[in-house]
């Protein structure tokens, strides 16, 4: 009995850690690139985006996991997107009511969480095959991994484009802001270099 609960615990731990690093959605699986690039001009919108994604991911994983035995193969994706879009509508209305400025900044990228590949991928790869607890843990791991990645990318971009992090000045006065970093160019190139760095780090390990 103890051994059994031990293995369950280790499965939970594995699932949680997988999302954070080994199967990090952005760096390792290359999922959810659009919001990753679009909202990372500054840390604040990136964090908001990450939290909304965690909320939607956890809720949709719960629902998908509960109805996993009722799913028909050819209607699967449709059911996933319908579930997800319902929760995204909730998140969007919530942001509009309590964070109007942030909602304005993020604009259409909040509803675009519907088509964020991470959520569909987790519904398909995890929630539709596993029980409730594993699905929730997986959602949290993936969501936190995604949020952390967004924040790393956003801090680099915000620091170099304005000299500030979280709207607080960090860089010394002589620092000349790199305007390009807040533009699409900065997003693509920073993410490309970060991916290269991650590739290098993981290669050294194995």
């Amino acid at each position, binding site marked *: 009995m103890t051994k059994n609960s031990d293995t369950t615990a280790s499965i939970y731990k594995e699932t949680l850690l997988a999302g954070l690093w080994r199967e990090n959605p952005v760096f390792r699986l*290359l999922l959810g690139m*659009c*919001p990753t690039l679009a909202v990372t001009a500054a840390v604040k919108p990136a964090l908001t985006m990450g939290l909304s994604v965690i909320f939607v991911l956890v809720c949709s994983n719960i629902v998908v996991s509960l109805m996993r035995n009722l799913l028909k193969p050819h209607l699967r994706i*449709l059911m996933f997107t319908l579930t997800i879009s319902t929760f995204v509508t909730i998140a969007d209305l919530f942001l509009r009511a309590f964070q109007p400025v942030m909602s304005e900044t993020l604009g259409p990228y909040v509803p*675009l969480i519907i*088509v964020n590949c991470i959520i569909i991928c987790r519904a398909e790869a995890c929630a539709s095959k596993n029980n409730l607890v594993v699905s929730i843990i997986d959602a949290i791991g993936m969501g936190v991994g995604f949020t952390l990645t967004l924040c790393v990318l956003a801090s680099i971009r915000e620091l170099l484009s304005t000299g500030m992090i979280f709207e607080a000045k960090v860089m010394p006065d002589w620092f000349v802001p790199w305007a390009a970093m807040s533009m*699409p160019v900065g997003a693509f*190139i920073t993410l*490309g270099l970060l991916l290269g760095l991650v590739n290098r780090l993981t*290669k050294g390990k194995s």
Partner: protein
Amino acid sequence: MSTFNTLLLGFISIVLINNLVFTKFLGICPYLGVSGRIDMAFGMGMAVTFVVTLSGTLTWIIDNWILAPLGLEVTRYVCFILVIAGAVQLVEMYVRKFFPSLYESFGIFLPLITTNCAILGLCLFINLWGIDNLLEAVVLSFGAGIGFTMAICIMAGIRENLKMVDVPDSLKGAPITLITAGLLTLAFMGFAGMIR
């Protein structure tokens, strides 16, 4: 004449200046995933163009003629995604029937057009920009598809040449593609401000 001008300007602006891939970061997944070969990129572009034109038009009609009068804007996202999924299903059946070899090579990427952000993104942007006539919505949707096709074909062309280049090991694959994409957006920034 002035209507024609507005439409033409709208078309040029969505293809070159407000290109969904380069300025709005939409449709990045297929843009990175399917841009390995130019013929596949072109096929993907065409499929997306078809779906985006169809769903852009339909969502505009649904949004303005059904949801707005009934006050059901809350269900907008659910309706949009249903329309898109339906349109993708149509394309999938058509391609499987008439171009089986193309269908094979697309694999998972064909049903994934449903989750192509460019399509839902465009429907949302049409709504956000407050486009108030049907013709303009159709032209914009079609233009967005053409813009996507152009972007993915340019990228595929570059990547075909990139195969012969000695790229540092850790940058191989996605990283170098992203950096290339970054340089491309830099080039397309030259069009910014051409039309106000």
